[in-house]
Each structure stands twice: as structure tokens, then as C-alpha cells.
């Protein structure tokens, strides 16, 4: 068991290195010269050829690629991601940590909505397969997969905020501000998970252990909840857990619709301002979250599932 966890953690390292390398290559492929950019950041009035050469030496840009990469990784590990190009008085770390909480709150509340809605709906769709309820839900699920998230957001603003004046259109601060954006983020994932849970439960219903539970004369409700649902949850919870970073990434669009001051808004603003260090750090952050959450839920699953648990003899 322990060796499995250690192995799994070790196997994540090359992936993290790959992601960091891609991010490093990314900033080195930008059309502008880093030395020139650095001078601009320092607000040097006249940028001369000599000054550029001097800065190059100073920043170690003449060193071999690998040396520079290792130095950059070292800086990242010390949480030093450089300074913002557009606003040199701010560090990238400062910008990211300023925006992170808002995105985190949004992603988490969406996650709660996803779990609270998709579990029972998926469960009842599977139990009452092909009933009117199931068919209606399947229709809605189908439609939501064709709906762009930002449009849903706009519709919600128009209907709920403007027409009925129930909730604020944009911004953040109170619970009221949170409802519409998190609902919008959740919507796409709800349909995915309803489908996942429904199909997974239907798959489980065909298993022999369900037949044998019936043979033993267990109550239908016991079989559904204690056996089928528990088995389905084992797969589905892991899938939902792994989608947390996806939710974080999914907020990009919605944050821009609702003017939610999170990472997504920062990212889009940085793309327009060509603020490369911020984009680079954002990509690095989300990539790392992906790897970490995959790892985390792999390990959780291996602990929770007795078949994967090694015997402690």
C-alpha cells in the first residue's frame, strides 16, 4: 500500500517537469526580447543596444537553455514568478494570490452545486429508467451540452437580474453575487455527471452481485442505496474530484461574463496586455493542480476500494 502511494507520487514528477518545461519554453517563444522587456519594466527612458547586452548578462540570458530552465524552476519552487510586465510594481505571485481566493470560492460553490444536483438526479434517472422524469432529464442534459456557458450566463443575468431584479448582475462580495456565476459554471458539469452516474448505476445493476442480493431477498431500497449507489459512487466521486481543477479552469469564461475578480479575469486581461509572466504562472498553476488532484484522488480511490487495498498481513 505504502509502496503504491510512493510509486504513484514518483510517477507524477515527470509529468510536472514536462508541464514546467512547456511553460518555460512558452515564455521563451514570445516575440519580444526578455532583456528589452526587462528594461521597459524598469522604466529605463532610452533603451540602448549596450543596455540590452548588459541586462542580458545580468539576467543570465546568455547561459545555456538548461541552466536557465533549472534556475527558473528553482525560482518557481521559491514561489518567485517574477514581476508583471504591465504593472512592474506588482509581483506575479501577488497578482495570482490576490485573485486566487475568488476563483477558489467560485469553483468550490460550483462543485457543491454539481454534487448536490447531479447525484440525486442521476440516481433517480437510473432507478426510474425510461420514465417521464428520466426522459425529460435526458432531454435537458442533451440541450445543455449544446449550450455555450457564457450564453447561459447572459440569459441568467437578463432573466433573473434584469427582468426580475432578484440578484446582482455582476461583481462579487456577497453570497447573492455568488449564486449566478457558480450556477453557470456548474451547469455544464451537472449534465456530464448526471449522465455518468446514471450510466454507471445502470451498468452496476447488470452485475451478478445485484442479482444475488435479489436472490437473498434484500429490500429494493437496500440494494439500490447500500450496494448499487455505493459501487457507483466509488467511480463517480473520483471523477468528480478529478474535475476540480477543470472547474477552476472552466471559470475563465464565466468570470468574464459576471465580472468576477478571479484568475480567469486576470488571465484574459493578461492575454490582451501581453503580460506573459502572469499567463505563464497561471498555466503552470492549473497544470500543477491537474496533476496534483489526479494524484490525490488516485490515492484516495486506492485506499477506499478494498480490491485495490493491499493486504496488511
Amino acid at each position: 500500500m505504502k509502496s503504491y502511494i510512493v510509486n504513484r507520487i514518483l510517477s507524477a514528477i515527470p509529468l510536472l517537469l514536462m508541464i514546467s518545461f512547456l511553460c518555460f519554453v512558452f515564455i521563451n517563444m514570445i516575440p519580444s526580447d526578455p532583456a528589452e522587456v526587462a528594461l521597459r519594466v524598469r522604466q529605463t527612458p532610452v533603451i540602448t543596444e549596450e543596455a540590452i547586452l548588459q541586462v542580458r548578462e545580468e539576467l543570465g540570458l546568455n547561459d545555456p537553455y538548461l541552466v536557465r530552465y533549472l534556475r527558473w524552476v528553482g525560482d518557481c519552487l521559491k514561489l518567485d514568478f517574477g514581476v508583471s510586465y504591465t504593472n512592474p510594481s506588482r509581483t506575479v505571485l501577488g497578482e495570482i494570490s490576490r485573485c486566487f481566493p475568488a476563483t477558489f470560492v467560485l469553483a468550490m460553490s460550483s462543485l457543491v452545486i454539481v454534487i448536490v444536483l447531479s447525484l440525486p438526479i442521476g440516481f433517480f434517472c437510473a432507478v426510474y429508467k425510461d420514465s417521464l422524469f428520466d426522459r425529460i432529464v435526458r432531454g435537458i442534459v442533451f440541450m445543455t451540452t449544446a449550450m455555450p456557458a457564457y450564453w447561459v450566463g447572459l440569459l441568467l443575468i437578463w432573466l433573473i437580474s434584469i427582468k426580475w431584479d432578484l440578484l446582482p448582475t455582476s461583481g462579487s462580495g456577497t453570497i447573492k453575487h455568488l449564486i449566478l456565476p457558480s450556477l453557470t459554471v456548474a451547469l455544464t458539469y451537472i449534465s456530464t455527471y448526471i449522465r455518468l452516474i446514471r450510466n454507471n448505476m445502470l451498468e452496476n445493476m447488470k452485475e451478478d452481485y445485484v442479482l444475488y442480493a435479489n436472490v437473498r431477498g434484500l429490500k429494493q431500497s437496500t440494494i439500490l442505496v447500500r450496494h448499487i449507489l455505493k459501487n457507483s459512487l466509488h467511480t463517480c466521486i473520483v471523477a468528480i474530484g478529478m474535475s476540480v481543477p477543470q472547474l477552476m479552469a472552466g471559470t475563465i469564461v464565466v468570470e468574464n461574463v459576471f465580472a468576477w475578480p478571479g484568475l480567469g479575469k486576470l488571465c484574459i486581461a493578461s492575454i490582451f496586455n501581453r503580460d506573459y509572466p502572469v499567463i505563464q504562472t497561471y498555466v503552470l498553476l492549473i497544470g500543477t493542480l491537474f496533476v496534483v488532484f489526479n494524484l490525490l484522488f488516485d490515492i484516495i480511490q486506492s485506499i477506499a476500494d478494498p480490491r485495490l487495498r493491499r493486504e496488511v498481513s
Partner: protein
Amino acid sequence: MWRRFLKNRMAVIMMGFLAVITLAGVFAPLLAPNDPYANDILNKFAGFSLKYPLGTDQLGRCILSRMIYGIRPTLFLSLLTMTGTIGLGCILGLLAGYFRGPVEEIIMRAVDVMMSFPSQIMVFAVVALLGVDVRNVILANVLIKWAWYARMIRTNVMKYRDKNFVLFSRCVGSGEPFILFRHLLPSIASEMAVLATLDIGWAILNISTLSFLGLGVQAPTPEWGAMLNEAKNVMTTNPVQMIAPGLAIVIVVAAFNLLGDALRDALDPKEVDV
């Protein structure tokens, strides 16, 4: 396969519907009542009328005409994306599946990395790096999607490469490229058609999202995502301007998804569920 396809009523209806949409896009100048770029500032936010069936936007442009012209970039760009994706995926998948050895090793490692990375973030990263432009959006979409096709095609090629008709044509002495294109491609074409149809919907959504954020098709061009971007600011005064393009996206994407599902049923009658 074709007979089964024609029997599937849903597939035929969706195919017909999409054909009509495509024709409407092609013959946009004939169908559109007005010039989509012509400003008529005095008539801004006009309601429904004979001259402007869906009213006008904040610059007094005819919304219906812009919708009809909007078919062009929407369909064209998504088809272009899919062509690029399938092209790149095909070439790399065929190379990997057919030649094996180090070629396969390199390609499949690249596929693994591509698939383990969050695709949404990749699009933004690529657009950020290359600059805000439609071409870059398409390039980004191709770059994140090709891996799926490469993997699917490789698996299929592995399945087919040892079948008798391929072995036979090698015995007869046909050249490798000839074998690849003459025999392998047709045998995997049907499966690819299903996947590609479903992915066109994905591409439309993705491109329109980027256009909405201002990273794709730029403002004056009538594209549904970009139209929504403009509509966002005048939502209070003119909701039609926001509802129409969104609805159009939903309908077209849903049509592609339904067609894809119907195609899959036609190809494989076993998988009927959801």
C-alpha cells in the same frame, strides 16, 4: 451502412437541416434582407418590422442579416478546425500505427502529454503566445485536439494492419503509401465520421466562446460569438440581440450532436443507450 443511415429518420432530418443551414450561409447575399455591415444609426434598437425582421442592433444593423452572414464564419471555421485536426491526427496516427518503432514511440509520448494537459488552458496559452487572431484560435484548437484522433487512428490501424486484405496487397507488391491510403483509410473512415461530427459541435462552441471573449473573430464581422460579445453590453435595452445568436448556436450544435449520435447508431446498432 448507407441504407441503415437512410432508415434512421433522425439522421436524415438533421442532415437535411444542416444542409439547409449551409446553403443559407452560402447564399447569404441573396437571402439576407439587408447589408450586415450597413449602419442605420437612426434606427438603432428597432423592433420587429418588415424591413428588419429581427430588429436592429446598437448601430442599427439588421440582426437577421447578421445572423445569416454569421453562418459563414461559424460553419467555415469549425469545418476548417476539424479538417486540420483530422488531417494532423490522421497523418501522425497512420505513421505511428503503420511504421511502429521509434516513430510510434515519439508520437505516442507526445499524444500522452497532450491528453494529460487541460485542453481549455492550452487554448488560452496558445492564443496568448501567438496573439489575438482567428487563425491562432484555429491553430490552438487543432493543437489540442489532434492527439485524440491520432490515438484512435493508431488503434484502428493496429487492428487492421494484419488483416488479410492488407497483407495480400503487400504481397502483390503495392507500395506502403498506396496501402495506407487505398485500404486503411476507408476502413476507419466511418468511425472517424462519427467522432468528427460530434467534435464539430465542440469546435463551434469553442470558437464562439473565444470570439465572445474577444480572442477570436473580431467585432464588426458578423459571427455569433462576436455578436453576443456586442450584445452583452446592450442586454438591458435589446434582449433579442442576445437571444437570437445564442439560440442559433444551440440549434446548430445540437443538430451536429444529434447527427453524430444517429451516425453512431447507424454504424453500430448495439450502442443505443444515451
